[in-house]
């Protein structure tokens, strides 16, 4: 891994944790807490993306709540898929980034459901949990309700995160873009 990728990861981890201030100010119905992971994966590939995700949840586990450590597999999936998406041009435009976000969201949601079922009994205390309860009121089985709720939140969250990352990539100084081999930097 290049030194700049190594130096970028801690900043991206901090971004994952700091973005909460912006989300709260905008009252967005999403978390955007994987935006740093997706940014690093888009710039430096899947391995760097995985390291960012794992480190983020370890640091969150140390600074906030150990519960985040249980969701490390989800961050591994996000880092991997975002890195692969980047390799096939998944962040070259906002529409492509939205498609990448859809895939990342579906896979991340599918990964988080077994964790939520095993550790939390299928419902987490938050927005996703409220959707799960609403779906249970419609007599959906618990597994289906947890799956649909997780998908709905994760897909929206990752699509928005990927769109923001794609918008930021074109605004990066060419010098830095070139260090990561971004196509727009070479143009």
């Amino acid at each position, binding site marked *: 891994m290049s030194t700049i990728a190594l130096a970028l990861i801690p900043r991206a*981890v901090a971004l994952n944790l700091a973005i909460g201030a912006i989300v709260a100010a905008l009252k967005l119905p999403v978390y955007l807490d994987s935006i740093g992971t997706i940014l690093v994966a888009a710039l430096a590939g899947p391995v760097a993306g995985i390291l960012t995700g794992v480190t983020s949840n370890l640091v969150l586990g*140390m600074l906030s709540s150990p519960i985040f450590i249980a969701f490390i597999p989800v961050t591994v999936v996000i880092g991997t898929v975002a890195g692969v998406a980047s390799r096939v041009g998944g962040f070259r435009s906002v529409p492509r980034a939205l498609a990448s976000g859809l895939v990342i969201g579906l896979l991340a949601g599918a990964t988080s459901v077994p964790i939520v079922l095993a550790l939390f009994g299928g419902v987490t205390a938050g927005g996703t949990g409220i959707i799960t309860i609403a779906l249970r009121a419609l007599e959906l089985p618990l597994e289906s309700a947890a799956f649909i709720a997780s998908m709905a939140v994760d897909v929206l969250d990752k699509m928005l995160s990927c769109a*923001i990352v794609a918008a930021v990539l074109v605004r990066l100084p060419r010098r830095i873009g070139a260090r990561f081999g971004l196509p727009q930097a070479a143009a």
Partner: protein
Amino acid sequence: MIERLRRINPLTALATAVLLVCATYVVPAPIGPALTLGIGVVLSSLTGVGRRVAILAIAVALPTWLFLAVMNAVVAPEGDTIRVAGIAVAPAALVPAAWIALRLGAAVAALGWVVMMTPPLRLVHALAQRGLPAWSQYLLAASLAAVPEARRRAREVLDAQRCRGLAVGGGPLGRLRAAIPLAGPLMVSLVTDAERHAIALDARAFEPRGKRTSLVPVPDPKGERILRTALWALTVALVVWGFVR
């Protein structure tokens, strides 16, 4: 004894917490989680972080129990129901919900004890002493150091864009549109900052695969090393027992 417990090597504390978390999920409820929660609370109290750990555990366990109770006892009642203020409630569903919340609380208390008692960098140094490569040590230490700076910068960007007239209210689409002018500068500045740090690392001939020597070694007496081996062995045995029973 208590003073010695407060100066325990972070890796010994971590091994204890991992054992407690495994016991919480392997030993049947309510005995397993109640016992581990008790141990976690006692260890936390002895090391002076009892109140913080209790708050953390309650903050996770109580909302989880409430959500589960609403879902399984009221919204989609499981089992026989009784009427409470005109609402059908399944009281039997409250018990499994309580065990799930108890398990979560016990796991959070065990890990929370390590997190609250140990300064994060001390844990990183202890890991480095046991052979953690320089690159992963850098990732953990630099991430912990970067968080306050990034939070400060996020607030600065927010204030600056508001001063320039950025509307952060309105409908969902308008708020989504406002996300880019807010998140964008923060992200670009962090990437630019990374380049500066990469140059600094290169200038200092940073070797990612090397092992680093700590200026302040974390004490790791032989007794603790033996205890740690026993704790890890017990954890493995517990997990195996959980699978085969």
